[in-house]
């Protein structure tokens, strides 16, 4: 039987309700990021660069755009005869079928898919994080440690540690304890939601977990604690680099602002680690005679006549005369008229901001203003502006 060294399962079913209106019509991994990407491009590109040729994308909530976007995977070089990318929504088999009840259950329901490739190891990743990671280094570590499950961890500031799943390890990086969002963290090693399992081991835990009626069928809450209880060999793999959860409007905005630093920690322009994205094929962007553009990222198809300061503009955005965009994120196909002021805001795709409209609050402690997909904002239409 043909077999593979490893395959990846990408959890992309999350609703991302903390992203408010940004995810009213699409799944969280499909949310645009960095002007020309979607969040899912980052883990998929990581797979390409790590030499993974088989990725199952587990979808559930608002799957259509994601299905279409991932397509046959050719953008990420994941179009192959045996493997490649497969979008895996919940399905019905002869023994029934149901919605994915949790992260572990989603993988459980696709045991047949994974078995087809008979992999030695299975990498579990999610579609909610912005990071560049060579998973093959983690695999080498996993093999070297003869680990049954390896969990990627990153050091977080101590004061934030209680927001994460925290690993307590011994000197040999063996995980001895896992605390989900501990009130008094014993370490600051947070789980990144990147797990590498020996497939035979994981398979049996998934089957046992499915029988447990009290389980939430979640990797962090059930599978990992159960394995620790059974004294399996779990190791922490230290990741150094930029890693950001973009699960809230504030964190999504912050991650964009991070890109605008003079020497950003997270670089999109690394020629050895290109982030692949489905390309919309627009002409180069045009900067007009009176335009001013500083410390910003701009994409193809934009037409800029006003001022853009410290902002990220996705493709096909028009900024009219005498308008100012400051500390903001403008998603694709947004049309901004003349004399508009936008500050500390995220404007979602396909919005029309009419002449003279004012959006956002310049106060650094104010919440980021979000304008949902496809809205039209006029100069008098202040009510539509939602601070969340």
């Amino acid at each position, binding site marked *: 039987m043909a077999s593979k060294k490893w395959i990846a399962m990408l959890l992309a079913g999350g609703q991302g309700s903390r992203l408010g209106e940004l995810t009213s019509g699409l799944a969280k991994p499909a949310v645009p990021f*960095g*002007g*020309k990407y979607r969040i899912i491009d980052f883990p998929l590109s990581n797979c390409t660069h790590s030499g993974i040729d088989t990725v199952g994308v587990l979808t559930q909530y608002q799957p259509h755009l994601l299905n279409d976007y991932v397509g046959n995977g*050719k953008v990420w070089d994941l179009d192959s005869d045996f493997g490649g990318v497969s979008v895996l929504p919940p399905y019905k088999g002869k023994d029934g079928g149901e919605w994915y009840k949790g992260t572990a259950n989603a993988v459980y329901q696709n045991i047949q898919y994974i078995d087809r490739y008979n992999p030695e190891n299975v990498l579990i990743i999610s579609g909610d994080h912005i990071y560049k990671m060579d998973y093959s280094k983690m695999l080498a570590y996993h093999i070297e440690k003869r680990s049954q499950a390896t969990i990627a961890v990153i050091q977080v500031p101590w004061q934030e540690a209680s927001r994460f799943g925290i690993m307590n390890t011994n000197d040999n990086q063996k995980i001895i304890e896992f605390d989900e969002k501990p009130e008094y963290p014993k370490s600051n090693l947070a789980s990144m939601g990147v797990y590498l399992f020996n497939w035979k081991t994981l398979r049996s835990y998934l089957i046992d977990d499915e029988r447990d009626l009290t389980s939430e069928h979640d990797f962090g809450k059930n599978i990992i604690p159960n394995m620790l209880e059974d004294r399996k060999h779990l190791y922490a793999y230290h990741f150094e680099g930029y890693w950001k959860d973009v699960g809230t409007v504030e964190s999504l905005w912050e991650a964009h602002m991070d890109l605008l630093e*003079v020497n950003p920690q997270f670089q*999109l*322009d690394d020629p050895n680690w*290109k*982030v*692949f*994205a489905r*390309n919309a*094929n*627009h*002409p*180069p*962007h*045009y*900067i*007009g*005679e*009176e*335009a001013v*553009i*500083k*410390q*910003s*990222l*701009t*994409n*193809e*198809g934009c*037409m800029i006549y006003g001022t*853009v300061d410290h902002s*990220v*503009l996705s493709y096909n955005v028009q900024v009219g005369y005498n308008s100012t965009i400051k500390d903001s994120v403008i998603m694709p196909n947004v049309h901004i008229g003349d004399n508009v002021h936008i500050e500390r805001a995220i404007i979602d795709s396909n919005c029309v901001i009419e002449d003279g409209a004012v959006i956002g609050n310049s106060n650094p402690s104010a919440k980021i203003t979000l304008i949902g997909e496809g809205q039209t904002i006029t100069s008098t239409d202040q009510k539509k502006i939602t601070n969340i």
Partner: protein
Amino acid sequence: MGNVLGLINLINEKQYLKELTTHRNIASVPFGGRYRLIDFTMSNFINADISLVAVFPKERYLSLMDHLGSGKEWNLDRRSGGLFILPPIQPHETSMGDMKQFHNHLSFFERANADTVIISPGHHVCKIDYNEILAFHRENQADITVVYKDFYDGAVEKLIYHQCIVDEDGNVTDINLFNVPQAGDHISLETYVISKSLFIDLVKKCAANEEYNFLKDAVKANLHRLNVKGYHFTGELPFIHSIESFHASNMKFLNPQTLKSFFSEEWSVVTKIKHEPPAKYGQASNVKNSLIANGCDIQGTVENSILFRGVKVKKGATVKNSIIMQKGEIEEGAIVENVIADKEVRITKAKKAVGENEPLVIKKAEVI
């Protein structure tokens, strides 16, 4: 409507773009910030739902092969139809004429699942609706349709254009080969519509007589015998035949109206994908009236210029009235004016590169 074969004929190209065409053919010369000239013809074909495209290169086509690849960017990597690149079989025959190369690949035409052939050169920057021309061709029951455009560009010294004489019924009555075009002349765009069977017939007959020039031996020589119609193209099409006209044609795109008319959702101009990140602007960047492609990093001043993908303009550098192709680097304090810099050119710190009377061409990967 039957199947159409789109034929891109590069055999008659002359290398008149100086250093830009020393290592590549004209069709592969970069244009408009992220395109190659051939992208416009390729896109015109796919926008007309033509899914079988054959490219006939003559020489220096490595860059072209790299650019077109399997044709997947144009959705031409398919089982039915697709992209075919049909180079010369005997290199010494390349000077004999385009019909020689067509004849060498006769079996391709015989096998091709198409009843009509549209022939175009590979360097026309235009939006041309081939379905409209096909409809014209069929309505007029033409044997051959010749597409022409009125000439109103500046003086051309080189003898490279052919003038069509068209009567009031739209019949092409004569073709003056290698003519110095005067204002208002009908200039052949070397774009033709012809049925596949007639095309094959003409290729065979001409080969039997050792005549190998399509325009002269197949079209002009048969004007008295065949129904040859002229299709008057009235859209935008800058004639590119020199460094000056190449520079000016690029600069025409520094205009929002031109941009909107050339590039729209309904008519995308497709090129090879490079996966470049967004363009980055620094604190001190100062950019006016310019076209900037993705992957650029701009810390200095850019005016009236076109920057291709991945160009870097460092602090204190100035770029004016110039075209900087892919991955050019303009270092701190350098001054670049009226220049066409080929790919990967580097202008080092505080150096000056200025074109005086005509644009200064800097060849690929040169360091100044």
